[in-house]
């Protein structure tokens, strides 16, 4: 990956607030940067077109071209240069504000049940892999008006699929979930490639950079690297800090896994649990040396009311963006560079964050949060006497150079 100007960013600025009428779980930008998707509580995937953007290199283009396209995007002057027809429409709006973008909602992808919490994009093809909490996994070309799935497996897992990972070359998928299995699939047709029965609810899964191993973590403090072709556990990581048995409840602290430092370090994000019931604990990142399995750093930020780091994004500049849910209190957006003792940026201005989507340009990210005043015992009815649900506004931030 080329060095990107934002290695030492200034404070991010909120530039847009996208209202949504539902609660959203997992938000992601497409690799081309033109689409933002988010899984919802109501069996659907919401989509927005990030208009005002020059499209990235065509699918299957040589990767070397991509950085140039990115550089093009960043340069204001080049914005007015040759653009695809769609983007030209938005010129008038885009004019005048260098960072103004429109998020035009597209028809949601439907056909799911329960929650759609697991989303992942193919690195180069315009494909979106999505899974729901009833166990369905499918693959859709995400840029059409009302796209139909290319392939679909309604019972890929028995129940809640929590995460999808895509191999670096895009050929394989990995999924994990409440049925205690990790499974590897062929991304082109959804055919099963491998599976491993771990035995307890699995919260995160990610491919190792070389594509031969998947790393997964459960709710009981165990993280392991699996050589899935051989079907053998290659290494275990001691993440006991991410679990606590409080009375009857096994508090599952793990929420996400990713690689940093050019694939040398595995980061596990979640919570250092304090108590169950209304789960409270401190946001935590555990950094492991992937080769040796050793814990390099146990980083916590904030206090026990700051809650889970629900989702992370690894910035090309080498730092981790984490968002947390806050219990009670507000959500938090946090930037942390591995090995540093403190987060070099954090803010608790928005309410209860569920997910963070990093734009491929590295200059923008979206946080799926919650409306203010989302909790409360007893009734809260609208003026018409209707029982109101909550929703997840998407906060779009810009990271200055």
């Amino acid at each position: 990956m080329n060095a990107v100007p934002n290695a030492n960013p200034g404070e991010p600025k909120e530039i847009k607030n996208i209202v949504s009428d539902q609660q959203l779980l997992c938000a992601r930008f497409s690799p081309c940067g033109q689409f933002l998707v988010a899984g919802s509580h109501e069996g659907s995937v919401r989509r927005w077109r990030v208009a005002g953007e020059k499209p990235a290199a065509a699918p299957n283009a040589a990767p070397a071209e991509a950085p140039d396209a990115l550089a093009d995007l960043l340069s204001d002057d080049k914005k007015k240069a040759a653009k695809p027809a769609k983007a030209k429409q938005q010129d008038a709006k885009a004019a005048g504000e260098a960072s103004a973008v429109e998020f035009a909602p597209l028809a949601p992808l439907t056909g799911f049940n329960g929650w759609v919490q697991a989303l992942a994009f193919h690195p180069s093809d315009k494909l979106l892999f999505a899974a729901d909490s009833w166990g369905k996994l499918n693959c859709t070309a995400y840029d059409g008006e009302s796209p139909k799935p290319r392939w679909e497996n309604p019972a890929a897992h028995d129940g809640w699929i929590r995460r999808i990972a895509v191999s670096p070359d895009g050929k394989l998928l990995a999924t994990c979930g409440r049925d205690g299995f990790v499974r590897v699939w062929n991304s082109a047709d959804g055919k099963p490639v491998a599976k491993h029965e771990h035995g307890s609810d699995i919260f995160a899964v990610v491919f190792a950079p070389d594509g031969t191993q998947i790393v997964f973590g459960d709710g009981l403090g165990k993280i392991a690297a699996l050589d899935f072709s051989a079907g053998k556990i290659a290494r275990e990581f001691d993440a006991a800090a991410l679990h606590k048995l409080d009375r009857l409840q096994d508090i599952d602290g793990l929420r996400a896994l990713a690689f940093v430092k050019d694939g040398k370090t595995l980061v596990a994000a979640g919570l250092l649990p304090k108590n169950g019931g209304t789960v409270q604990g401190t946001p935590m990142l555990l950094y492991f040396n992937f080769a040796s399995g050793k814990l390099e750093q146990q980083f916590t930020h904030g206090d026990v009311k700051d809650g889970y780091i629900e989702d992370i994004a690894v910035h090309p500049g080498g730092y981790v963006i984490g968002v947390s849910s806050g219990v009670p209190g507000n959500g938090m957006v946090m930037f942390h560079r591995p090995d540093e003792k403190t987060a070099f940026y954090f803010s608790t201005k928005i309410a209860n964050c569920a997910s963070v989507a990093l734009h491929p340009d590295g200059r923008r990210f979206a946080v799926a949060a919650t409306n203010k005043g989302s909790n409360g015992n007893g009734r809260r009815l609208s003026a018409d006497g209707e029982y109101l649900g909550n929703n997840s506004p998407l906060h779009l931030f810009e990271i200055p150079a």
Partner: protein
Amino acid sequence: MNSPLCKPWEHAFSRRQFLGASAGALALGAFGGLASSRAAEAMRKKEKQVLFVWLDGGISQLESWDPKPNTQFGGPFRAIPTSVPGVHFSELMPKSAKQMHRLCVVRSLCTKDNAHSSGVARIQRGDPKTRGVPYPFFGSAISKLMGPTASKLPAYVWIKPGSGGFKAEDAGFLGPKYGSVAFGDGKPPDDLLRHASLTTEADEERNELREMLNKRYAEQRRRNYTEASSYVFDTAQELMKRADIFDTTKMPAKELDRYGRTEIGQHMLVARNMLEAGVRFVKVNSYGWDTHGDNFNGHASLVPKFDRAFAAIVEDLAASGLLENTLVVAMSEFGRTPRINGHVGRDHWPEAWSLAMAGCGVKAGAVVGATNEKGTFVKDEGYDIGSVFHTWFNALGIDSQRVEYDNHGQPLPIAHDDMKPIKEALV
């Protein structure tokens, strides 16, 4: 008398009832504090028992008894069919689903209190009309109304995490005698186990000596003290003899596995033993259900553990024939909001929630009432906890609208004056 004074703003008083205008209002008197000796006798003959499972904090009805999958507030989980066609539970309760043909699930509870500190006591007291005295919890009420069984074991045993001992608070105006004997962490109260220095023979012999001395002493004196003393020493003896009931280290591994090697699993197994040994009322507490944050993972961890233990005990009570005369109840102080808050949690919701019952006097395989499609409110008639108390008393053969307590001359109804038993729940 241990009675806090009523707060003026809470006070709702029914003069008519106090003056004993209702037809069945019976004479005040010393019938053991019951306004009828006949009623007392009738109740004592049948060895009915109660298992009361209290899930403290508020179990989510949407993640248990009344799932609404694939709706706005339904959450991620699926619903699964139960042993009664057309009735579904959350996928988190597969074992209890198989017991539904024995259960009676009320899905139409609608109560008033959404706070823990007041709500827990209100629910367990049946929230009667305020009379300026604290009403007894259900266990103390049964201890008073039905007394211990012929087993001589204490009438009201409470199995709970944390501290044990003799808990008088539950008894309200009935007085500490009707409080519970609590087994903290399933362990017996202090001094329950025979002292290591004593052999059984020595213990029995010295106890016989004591009885003989008491008898001689009381020959020419009032009998009540020596009788009371004999009673408690006998109860102590019974409890001491039955260490096998609560000593989980001595229980077969298979049983411990069936109930689950969790806090609630072990406690439920002790509860079963207590019931089999003849304890009249056994309460089992589980704490930590108040999932304002991370409700779904929380319940995914909690509910299956409860499910395993609960299904096991229902099965065992049915197999031993005890279920016929044992009223089983599992509930919390309220349900949880359909609305999902920003920390992925659910808040308190007394407006529409559920409880489950089984056994003595209740209809098996029945669902009482329903919530609407989204699970936000009760569809037709909502039941307050007063109606539920009426239902329980009647299930146990106690006429809840006639029997009264006698609180030092003040007749008090045993359940809310204006409510009635839930007919559809009773056999």
